[in-house]
């Protein structure tokens, strides 16, 4: 697509507007404010990695920014080092701090993470104030030299505007390139549902750490440029209001897009300046404007303008539908002969939640290519068993072997990459993402996701295309390829269920846990699904199916295992199970329902 199409118009208009801005508003004051806007844009582009893409409310970005500014300030003002040395150090300093604090804080959940990061920022502020001999205390450090590279100084005014905005362009390009492909979509999956991300092998901890580091590095760049612009560094750069400004810019501009970061920074840096003449009242006006923008633009200003220009993702997607032809329906599943050795061996598993013994001494085997049904009344521990096998819970006793290898202590993402996929009882999809991409992400996650690879993708993203092609092929095989270019959230329930199965299959698994795959499907959909599952098993795939719908399950299962109150009470072929008095007593009898009556 080399010709700028209509969807590129807003982008072009934005770039032209940014280029024209400093020519129109060209007083020294306007240029300085515009320079600051650029610096904040860099800060926010960085912040979007952790806050927007990774979805973690980090309150350290202001501290990283201040640290970068202080490093430049200290080395520049006290030792007279040139920016050639101080700029890289200003980037590395915050990144180093990020590495140190990543291990303890990144695993914390939302509000704890926010508070922990806030605490770290406050400590840094106190150190800057009290370590007077080094930081100059509350007064700060004056006399920071202008930006100089190898004796070439970048004076204030237009040259500084050009320099800073070139860095903004580079930073924006970096962020866009990193996040436009499957890598960015993996982040999207992670922030919308971490459980789901783990189940398809996305290493959330690693992605979050990368995002945190990138945020810190970008904040360091912004901090260094800030120090060179203001020429004084004082504890104010570490104060909470810098963080608030950055957060507001990200929310008001838009959380993930580069355009949003730039828009947020430009608007929020200028807003108080426009209102400044109001003296005591200007911050009130600023607060009102901030509040109004949060309420008016839920997706940020970038989202609002995108809406106005008619470039919502779904419409865009419609235009490229069909650009990628479905690949051949060749089987990608690791077809293996039905071996005698069990593929999955559950050995004496026990699990307690508080006072409830959810599982007690449960053992059974699943052989390769088998379809095993796992049944039992509600609360009998079926889903708990799947959660233990996929690494979400740790068992209190016993172990599970997969292909002869113990899964104990492995993280969910690692288990997924071994070739164990699952679906969920409640549908877990990234609703605002295209159906095809919900599957393509899982295809991509078979290989560890690497930032470096994302950054070196050519403009025409072949990896993306082939992942989508493979996703389309899988969807075709399940008969849902027409849904591919729609947002997953808008699909009918039956299609969503099948999309979940498609996503599980995209991992090229040897074993798939299906948690109530037939729930909510009508009779013809159930028949279709049964046929598809059987053909998958014939292709060598092993399935463990949890289901309440007995006719459905008995029509496909080779063997069945029945749990009751956390214990295995029966195992055998469907006909054996149907005749087993223990099963009848515990399950059908107790519930006084006939098989299959449950919808």
């Amino acid at each position, binding site marked *: 697509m080399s010709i700028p199409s209509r969807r590129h118009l807003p982008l072009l208009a934005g770039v032209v507007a940014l280029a024209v801005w400093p020519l129109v508003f060209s007083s020294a004051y306007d240029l300085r404010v515009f320079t600051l806007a650029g610096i904040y844009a860099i800060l926010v582009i960085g912040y979007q990695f952790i806050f927007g893409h990774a979805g973690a409310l980090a309150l350290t970005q202001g501290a990283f920014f201040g640290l970068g500014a202080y490093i430049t300030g200290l080395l520049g003002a006290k030792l007279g080092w040139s920016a050639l040395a101080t700029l890289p150090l200003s980037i590395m300093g915050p990144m180093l701090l990020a590495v140190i604090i990543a291990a303890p804080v990144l695993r914390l959940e939302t509000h704890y993470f926010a508070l922990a990061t806030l605490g770290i920022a406050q400590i840094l502020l106190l150190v800057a104030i009290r370590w007077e001999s080094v930081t100059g205390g509350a007064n700060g450090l004056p006399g920071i030299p202008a930006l100089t590279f190898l004796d070439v100084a970048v004076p204030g005014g237009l040259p500084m505007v050009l320099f800073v905005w070139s860095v903004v362009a580079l930073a924006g390009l970096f962020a866009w390139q990193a996040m436009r492909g499957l890598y960015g979509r993996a982040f999207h999956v992670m922030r919308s549902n971490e459980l789901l991300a783990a189940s398809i092998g996305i290493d959330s901890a690693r992605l979050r750490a990368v995002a945190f580091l990138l945020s810190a590095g970008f904040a360091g760049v912004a901090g260094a440029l800030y120090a060179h612009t203001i020429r004084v560094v004082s504890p104010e750069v570490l104060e909470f209001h810098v963080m608030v400004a950055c957060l507001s810019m990200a929310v008001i501009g838009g959380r993930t897009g580069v355009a949003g970061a730039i828009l947020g920074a430009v608007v929020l840096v200028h807003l108080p300046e426009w209102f400044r003449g109001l003296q005591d009242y200007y911050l009130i006006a600023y607060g009102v404007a901030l509040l109004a923008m949060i309420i*008016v633009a839920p997706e940020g200003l970038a989202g609002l303008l995108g809406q106005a220009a008619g470039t919502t993702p779904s419409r865009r997607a419609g235009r490229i539908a069909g650009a990628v032809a479905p690949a051949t329906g060749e089987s990608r599943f690791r077809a293996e002969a039905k071996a005698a050795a069990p593929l999955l061996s559950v050995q004496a598993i026990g699990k307690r939640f508080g006072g409830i013994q959810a599982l007690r001494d449960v053992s059974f085997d699943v052989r390769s290519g088998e379809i095993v049904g796992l049944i039992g009344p509600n609360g009998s521990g079926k889903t708990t068993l799947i959660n233990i096998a996929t690494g979400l819970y740790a068992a209190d006793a016993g172990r599970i072997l997969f292909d002869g290898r113990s899964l104990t202590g492995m993280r969910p993402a690692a288990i997924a990459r071994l070739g164990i996929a699952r679906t969920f009882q409640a549908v877990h999809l990234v609703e605002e993402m295209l159906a095809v991409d919900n599957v393509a992400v899982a295809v991509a996650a078979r290989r560890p996701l690497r930032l470096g690879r994302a950054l070196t993708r050519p403009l025409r993203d072949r990896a993306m295309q082939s992942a989508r092609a493979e996703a389309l092929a899988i969807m075709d095989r399940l008969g849902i390829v027409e849904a591919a270019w729609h947002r997953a959230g808008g699909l009918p329930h039956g299609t969503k269920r099948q999309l979940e199965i498609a996503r599980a299959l995209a991992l090229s698994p040897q074993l798939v846990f299906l948690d109530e795959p037939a729930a909510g499907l009508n009779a013809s959909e159930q028949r279709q699904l049964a046929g598809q599952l059987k053909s998958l098993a014939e292709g060598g795939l092993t399935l463990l199916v949890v289901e309440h719908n007995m006719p459905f399950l008995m029509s496909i299962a080779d063997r069945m295992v029945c749990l009751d109150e956390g214990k295995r009470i029966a195992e055998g072929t469907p006909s054996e199970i149907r005749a087993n008095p223990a099963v009848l007593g515990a399950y059908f009898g107790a519930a006084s329902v006939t098989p299959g009556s449950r919808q």
Partner: protein
Amino acid sequence: MTAPVSRQHLGRPGCLRQAMPPRHIIGAFGDGRFWAISALVLTVGVWIIAMKNTLAFVIALLGVIAAFRTLPAQAQSAGPIEVNIPVLVPITGYLSLEGQSQRNGALLAVKNAPAGIRVRAEVTDTGVAPEAAVNALERAAGRGPVTAVAASMLGTQMLAMLPVAKDYKLPLITVSGTAEITQMNNPYVFRFFPGDDVTKVAHVRYAVEELGKRRVALIYQTTAYGQSGRRQILEQLGKSGLAPVFEDGLEVQIRDMLPVLSKAKAAGPDVLMIHLHSGPTALLIRQAAALRIGLPIVAGSAMHQPPTADLLGPGELRGVCAEANASPVSGGSPGIERFVQQYRQEFGMEPDGFALGQYDGIMMVLDAIAKGARTAEDVRRALSTMRYEGLAMSYRSDGTGNMAHSAVIMCFDGSSRTPRIVKRYDNITGALSN
């Protein structure tokens, strides 16, 4: 025990806010900005109720902003001599008490400008960030020729503004006490308040020579104000061969002074030196009185500000002394009394030494203009050579921009909240005598 709801707890009687916006500011709203903002607030209100058609709303919002941005500055009618003195001071944030004094002092000087001089004095808030101060200065410089600037008393902001002032060749008139601002070799700074290196001489000499104390407990704020004061106190004490027996720094948020007071007392001092902002100063003095700590207290300039004394009962203030450039409310000369009266009338509040210093500074600028200075450079030259008899003291540059060389020590005798000047230290640097 019924409540003796005294003046102490209510602040001054009368209106809620002592400083109702002065008439100048209300005047500034006549140009339509006030209405633009009201319209904005109203639009938002209507939108929140209507909750629809967001795009139209945003366009309207941007329209209002644009309209208000392009409002022309007030047209200048051809007057006798036109000068432009922007007032760039912190009227929000933790230094706003001092910043508002600066603003009021500057505006009062503008009002009292010598006949034949017409002054434009637009007030801009600098908050507490250096960035905002520099922006404000650049903005002021871009709006027509500037004669001089009434500049923030926050040291960090001054340090940030100085290089810019040098670029634009604009004299900055401030009352910042931060020692460093006149040590930057920048000819565009003029400080009309004794620097910390001057006030602390008075502070320490009073404690050591007048009170005869040698065991000092020093409590300071961990802000630019407190840290700079502490450095100078240590230096002056050192000159007398003394070192504090106790020192501790407090963050502005610290409210309970019992721990620090107990520790200070345990060190066995004979005098308490404090260098805290207004609120913490009052808290510390009140809690010290409640504990009957029984030590004389020599406080920093925040204690001389009337709002600080207003938080305390006269009894709590007994034996408390403070340093400053002057204490306008204590009277002393017909000029000062006139100033105090006019200030109260204009702003509905009591003036402090910062207001008086800023007043004197701007008056000196206007005096230079009356004597023939026309450009910023003329004013700079006049300020760096002239001697000026201000209300608080005589001012003359020492060559680095320090104009004020005198400090006073005032004490509260326990009968009222108005301090009495007990000691003047004139010409501490000797700059007035050459």
